[in-house]
């Protein structure tokens, strides 16, 4: 009697376990089936392209008539050319990275701010939302390219800058005069570097607004997913909205800040109006395609390092609300 019971006891879990495994396997199989398009594409198209691109940077390329390209392995020479021989690359790179460091906090903070505003109940919220998301759809690719070399806009808005000093008179429609800001700050005797940074940011406001559309959407989604009951209990306890923002909204939205920071880095890094990318594209078209690939990979490695560092720092401060 006891024996059979024990046997049953040992048999039953075994049987159950085997069944679980088979279901798992079945599920795994359908999982593979769902991601199959990506797997195939990655294996036969993407991976060869990426590997080929990396491999090219270790070679010198010569176009031979009727045979296509002739590759000769030259080791790290292309990288040496990019880093030590080309006069402009390192300068452009450091300039671009500095711009990245300034732009990213500006974009993330701006988009969070606007998302909080657009999340509040008010008259015309739908209209404002529609306007704010226009750049996501319209100010990309071709339009951004056209805008980049645009003289009409500058002429019309008279923001051709204080450096040239030409268009100051026609500033009837100017948004904000950067000369005023410089004046304000120079009276406060802060460093000229800070003044320059802030002036740049203000002059760049159109650019920043244009680039923070998707981030705004992501923040808005995050704000919507915060339980209203938390806010309710907060206001019952007598918290002001300032306190509510820093004690509730900010911690709850902090995972989004990480996502958005990474997205912003990647987006500005892959966008065509990025100065480094422009430089690389020009180099591709004019001088040497292999060296430009080497440059692009150097840039890529640096940006990935930045993403890694930023996400390591930020994820230490992130608050995750466990939902399960």
């Amino acid at each position, binding site marked *: 009697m006891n024996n059979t019971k024990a046997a049953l006891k040992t048999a039953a879990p075994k049987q159950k376990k085997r069944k679980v495994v088979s279901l798992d396997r079945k599920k795994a199989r359908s*999982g593979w089936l769902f991601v199959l398009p*990506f797997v195939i594409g990655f294996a036969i198209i993407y991976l060869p392209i990426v590997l080929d691109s990396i491999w090219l940077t270790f070679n010198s390329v010569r176009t031979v008539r009727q045979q296509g390209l002739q590759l000769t392995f030259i080791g790290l020479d292309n990288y040496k050319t990019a880093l030590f021989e080309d006069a402009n690359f390192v300068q452009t790179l450091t300039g671009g990275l500095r711009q990245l460091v300034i732009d990213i906090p500006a974009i993330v903070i701006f988009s969070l701010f606007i998302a909080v505003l657009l999340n509040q109940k*008010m008259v015309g919220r739908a209209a404002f939302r529609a306007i704010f998301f226009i750049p996501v759809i319209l100010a990309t*690719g071709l339009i951004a390219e056209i805008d980049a070399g645009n003289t009409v*806009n500058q002429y019309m808005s008279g923001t051709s800058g204080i450096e040239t000093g030409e268009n100051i008179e026609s500033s009837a429609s100017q948004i904000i005069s950067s000369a005023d800001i410089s004046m304000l700050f120079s009276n406060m005797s802060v460093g000229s570097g800070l003044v320059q940074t802030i002036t740049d940011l203000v002059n760049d406001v159109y650019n920043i607004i244009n680039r923070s559309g998707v981030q705004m959407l992501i923040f808005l989604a995050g704000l919507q997913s915060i339980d209203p009951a938390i806010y309710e209990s907060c206001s019952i306890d007598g918290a002001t909205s300032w306190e509510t923002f820093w004690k509730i909204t900010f911690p709850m939205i902090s995972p989004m800040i990480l996502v958005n920071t990474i997205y912003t880095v*990647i987006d500005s890094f892959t966008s*065509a109006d990025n100065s480094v990318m422009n430089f690389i594209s020009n180099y591709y078209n004019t001088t040497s395609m292999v060296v430009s690939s080497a440059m692009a990979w150097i840039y890529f490695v640096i940006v990935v390092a930045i993403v890694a560092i930023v996400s390591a720092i930020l994820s230490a401060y992130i608050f995750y609300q466990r939902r399960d």
Partner: protein
Amino acid sequence: MTDNPIKVTKETKKKIRVEFERTSAWKKFKLKYLSLNFLGMTIFKIFRLVLLIGISYVILYPFFTKIASSFMSPTDFVDVTVMLIPKSPTLNTYKQIIIENHYFQALFNTLILSLICGVIQTFICCVIGYGFAKYHFKGSKLLFLCVVLTMIVPHQTIRYSMFMKFRYFDIGYFDFGILSLFGDKDGINLINTFIPLIMLSIFGLAFKNGLYIFMMRQFFKNVPDELEESAYIDGSGTFRTFMQIILPLSVPMMVTIFLFAFSWQWTDNFYTSTSMFFPGKSQVLLSKIVSIPRTLDTNYPGGNLFSAAIRNTCGLLIIAPLLVVYLFCQKFLVQGIERSGITG
């Protein structure tokens, strides 16, 4: 008992009539509107409104100037007194661009390309995102890392290899003599066709598809498993469940992604440029119409402004159809993202 505001005036068997001491209208008004809190709220609301209107102005202003300058005749650009409203409005710029740059042909071609790519990308990213969200199999984390990789390697970095891949297309080590059936030994030339872009879309590798897959995955993670489980119990298979239960659920999200895919393909200037998949004049696409028509003379003192205005007009013509799509879909944009709950 005297300071009790409630007075019981009459007491019958059934009814008790109670009279409250009412606060006067003035007192109510004072309490409601003359408090510091109300003042703060009002100031905040005004500030918020001004700020939002200001930023909207910054966003919309370039469009106004572009529209204004597109109607200007060449002489308006020399005239200093003309700021925003043209003195001698003309439709000539539009006319010449539409005729000389083959606008409608480009529109038609781009519409077809964007529609095909948009629909395929939406569906494929939906499928892949579902696979990543609901199934945990060996290597799924690594695969997702690959998705992230495709997102962060800029396509400019690999443009040359990508071009070569589709110029001499083969499928590498998976080729078992299939492609030799098509004749060419060096692989098939797919340049100047829509096939490279469609192929990238089918495999979820096109522009920003990593982002769509990520968004879809987050969305499906929030869909409760019980839905599928009950469908399975009712005897529905995996794919039927996906098609009949999951897809209808995710319509707002799919509209969002379609909007992104469609419009980013529409304004794309990388893949459709001459140095990528469409060299030469064989395919007329919208990215090619940004040029100055020969009949418009820009060779005069204010000419550079005029040529910039022409380019802007091209831009306006490009985004005009997109704006219509946006106005219809923008409601879904917020809705879809809201429901995705891309939280953590």
